[in-house]
């Protein structure tokens, strides 16, 4: 009985402390890393005058919406140089 109550009290202590420790960890992590993690990417973006971030693979219309002919809405169309995977067949200026 005593042993199980001791374990129960330990469980209560863990249930109270775990959220507090987690919140403190998350807050400390935000304080230390927010705005710092992406500094290298920001520096390269600025240095290269880069057209768009590399979220999508090169050659996709999401990465380079500027490749779309101006009269066409942002959607894939077999008539305008897009292959089935959404990549441009001739992606450079001609």
């Amino acid at each position, binding site marked *: 009985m005593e042993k*199980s*109550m001791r*374990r*129960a*009290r330990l*469980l*209560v202590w*863990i*249930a*109270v402390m*775990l*959220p507090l420790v*987690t*919140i403190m*960890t*998350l*807050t400390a*992590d*935000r304080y230390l*890393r*927010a*705005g710092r*993690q*992406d500094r*290298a*990417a*920001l*520096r*390269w*973006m*600025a*240095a*290269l*005058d*880069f*057209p*768009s*971030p*590399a*979220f*999508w*693979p*090169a*050659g*996709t219309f*999401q990465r380079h*919406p*500027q*490749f779309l*002919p*101006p009269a066409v809405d*942002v959607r894939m169309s077999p008539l*305008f140089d897009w292959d089935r995977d*959404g*990549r*441009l067949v001739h*992606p*450079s*200026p*001609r």
Partner: protein
Amino acid sequence: MTEMPHAMSQATHRKFWSPALASWAARDLMRQPAFTLVLFVALAAVTALAALVLLLQQTLATASTRLLEQAPHVVVRRVGAGGWLPLDAKAARTRAVSVVGVLRPRARMWGVVSGPQGAVTLMAVDGRDDINLPSGCSLPQPGQALAGPGVSGDERPDHISLNGSVSRELTVIGRLPRSAGSVVHDLVVAHAEDVRALLGLGPGQASDLALDVFHPDEAGALLPELAAALDWPVQITTRQEQLGRHLAHISRATGMACLGIGPLLLAILSVVVAVGIWGRRNWETGVLRAVGWTGADMLRLHLYRGLLVGLPAMAIGTLTAHLLLFWPGMTWVPQLLFGWSGPPPGFYLSSTGSAGAWLLSMVMVGVPFMAAVFWTGWRAAGADPGDILEGGR
């Protein structure tokens, strides 16, 4: 067993928090470890999924906004009936700078060519003014290149072959940093001479013209003058327009992902309900009421049990979502959402503005859960012990 609850009810009926009753609730949970564990894991998973749904779109939008804040204010492209055309760099710069409010026009040479493992973005750095590469990278000379972490040679690691208008093999003199993967992952930076040949640009030609304006918020007002100053039909894109397109694509990708999470949430909730029905113990409630527990004690016991499982589970769920999204070099988002078939870029996302999503996810999961716990406790508090014990026979 009969004395302890009665004594507790005498000593604790004025305060909500009672260490003795909390320990009793914890021991009650320990008597059903499987049920407690399933509930804990399910709550943590639901909280993590809710936090991911809330954080994903916001974090990627923040990352895009922060990155595109470094992009030129306005980009001018020459267009024709067939689409995008090269422009005369010197003439474009001269015309653009004649427009009042335009600053630092610079002709860019860039495009997409085939690399060893798929399409790569090719960029020239030599033909532009005041270029200064970070990380102490030296500017490539003709025949040399800087390659992103996702660009690798097919046979020799320090050489890459690129195929555009012509084929060229370039010597890799440096690697672009992995920590900038969300920008340079599939990028090759090369000398203007090589870029011009690969993209099929003539002498003095550039891909487009990037420029800044005196008042970025009013860039739209300059566009008619800028278009009139240039000799050819042009397509002019402001940074805001580009950001808008980018955010629309991100919303579409994350929206589809969030739709996929719905069935998973339903499955988790079904497991919890099934386990809850399986583990229902009406008879014990009747016994406790019969030995002197008040309705308030029963209600508090249920609330304690809910809090002892719910609070740590929601904390662990939030922490899991945070680590999944903001772990340095995280790759699952580009792999799943952005369609990378090769090695995806490592994202180093900023957690700026994530606190609201943490709180909201905990509220979204915690409030319905505690409402359900309260409802169960309320029914137990109002039930007649005789009826319960009769029904349990």
